[in-house]
């Protein structure tokens, strides 16, 4: 009887290893060179930004609406990052004593832009339209998470194809399409 158990264990182990190997390769599909795959991780991606901008302070504590800065969300595929001029509109007066603001002001003087690190980066072959999703009434937080509580923005959603597809499946009646060409360009 003991032997049988051992054998069963060994066979299960073998099968398990096989499935593990297959699954691991599945997540390795970043192997395809052209695509920058953003869909590989499940933990929150939280890159360091050149300037420690706090969404918690601006969007949370101060309650500035998202679209005040991300003005293109309703009009374009991209929500856009506000132009430096827009930051400076307030910070010419506000919090000018902070080093980060001074750093930004100095760059603005030199006509240089801040190089933000993209947190939510879709592969180049994907067509995603903020405009369509915003006008369908989705909250920014649906995909971006509780951004107003984040000191440093991190990615809360996996942004994988399956994640997109499942949401589209759930919103079939609202007109979300499952056609490949809706997202693949």
């Amino acid at each position: 009887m003991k032997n049988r158990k051992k054998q069963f264990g060994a066979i299960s182990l073998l099968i398990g290893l096989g499935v593990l190997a297959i699954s691991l390769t599945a997540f390795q599909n970043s192997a395809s060179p052209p695509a920058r795959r953003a869909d590989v991780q499940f933990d929150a991606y939280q890159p360091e930004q050149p300037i420690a901008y706090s969404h918690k302070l601006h969007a949370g504590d101060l309650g500035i609406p998202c679209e005040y800065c991300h003005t293109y969300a309703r009009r374009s595929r991209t929500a856009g990052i506000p132009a430096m001029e827009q930051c400076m509109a307030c910070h010419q007066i506000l919090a000018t004593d902070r080093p980060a603001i001074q750093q930004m002001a100095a760059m603005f003087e030199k006509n240089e832009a801040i190089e933000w690190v993209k947190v939510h980066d879709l592969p180049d072959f994907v067509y995603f339209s903020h405009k369509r999703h915003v006008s369908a009434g989705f909250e920014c937080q649906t995909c971006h998470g509780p951004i107003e509580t984040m000191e440093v923005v991190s990615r809360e959603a996996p942004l994988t194809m399956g994640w997109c597809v499942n949401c589209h499946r759930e919103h079939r009646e609202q007109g979300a399409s499952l056609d490949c060409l809706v997202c693949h360009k």
Partner: protein
Amino acid sequence: MKEINFPYKDINRDILRSLEKPGLLYVAIVSMVVAGVIFGGYCWGYQLVKGMGVAGLNHPVGWGVYITDFVFWVGIGHAGTLISAILFLFRARWRNAIFRSAEAMTIFAVMTAGLFPVIHVGRAWVAWWLIPYPNQRELWVNFRSPLLWDVFAVSTYFSVSVLFFSLGLVPDVAVIRDKAKGLRRSIYRYIALGWASTTEQWRHYMAGYGFLAALATPLVLSVHSVVSWDFAVSIVPGWHSTIFAPYFVAGAVFSGMAMVVTILIPFRKIFGIEKYLTPWHFDNMGKLIVLTSTIVSYAYATEYFIAYYGDDPFEQFIFWERTFGHYALPFWLMVICNCIVPIPLWFPKVRRHLPTFFVLSIFINVGMWFERFNIIVSSLAQDYDPFAWGWYVPSWVEMGITLGSFCWFFMWFLLFIKYFPAMAITEMKEIADPPMKHASAGHMEVA
């Protein structure tokens, strides 16, 4: 059969002789084929890095030497299963001496064939997308595609062949185990899976072996049918033909038998087992080659008749072009090698004259390779829109990979015959007379 009736002890000794320490010649040949494999690997690496453009493929000829090689190697595999499974079911006794090597050949041929779809696809690094498994994309595969049938047919064929082959090896590995000493013994003991050669084990073993043979028989017929459907299901004139499945299966057995002959004739010489592999075996194989050659020739003729009678301008045109057009050379090579060269084999004398048979078998191999090339390339080169026609010339990369594939195949085969009995010991004993104390007991067998 009297000719191969030897005492059990001699059988063990003679067959296991091939497992002895390799000679210089063996080492030299293995080194050569390994070098060929490395060159083939280099060619493939080059293709992966640069792109498929290093092959000679173009628009409109998207399939060329790689698919030719694929079909060729899958076809080669068929003889092994035919000999081991179908002839087993028919209780053809001459199979017992050759089925092990034929079956090994099957496995190595399918291993070679299996490489080609991966070599052939534009993005080999995502070739595993063809395997249906739950994935984050929520996306499956297209089971309507003949290529997916291929994935299933070839992988099933490979799996079942390996199972069947391994099962057959178990008692023989036990033989080696019991002969060997030291580390070798431990290794073979592990592979022998605890075989003790009892009648109880033999009972289940023989039953299971029979069922596997029964399963492998339709499988072997299906595999090349499915491969042929890659072409037949498509709409390309010259491919779209209902005759393809039987025609391909017959062709596969034809080429496979030729390959068995090509391999066994030098093999029996080198390992000094002429008394086990006699002209009688080759005579039987020759008969099968004659049969399949006739079927294949008939299929060629039928294709032309259907093209004529079917009155489809595209098909008529393609068959005319095949015969007299740009790709006439592969066509005539195919006809000569597959229909005319085997004609001498109608005569028993030729079948039993092994040097002649060896040369003929090589011609048949060449002919069958060109058959696939002819079907694949000439049909694609000139299909519906005359404006889109184009010629295909294989590049050095494709030829290098083809060479590498032959080396790859022979590498495995050479390693196999050094480490495993290339003839089935227990089955050779099966057809030998058992040791009897009283001569009259021999009648029991008849009874």
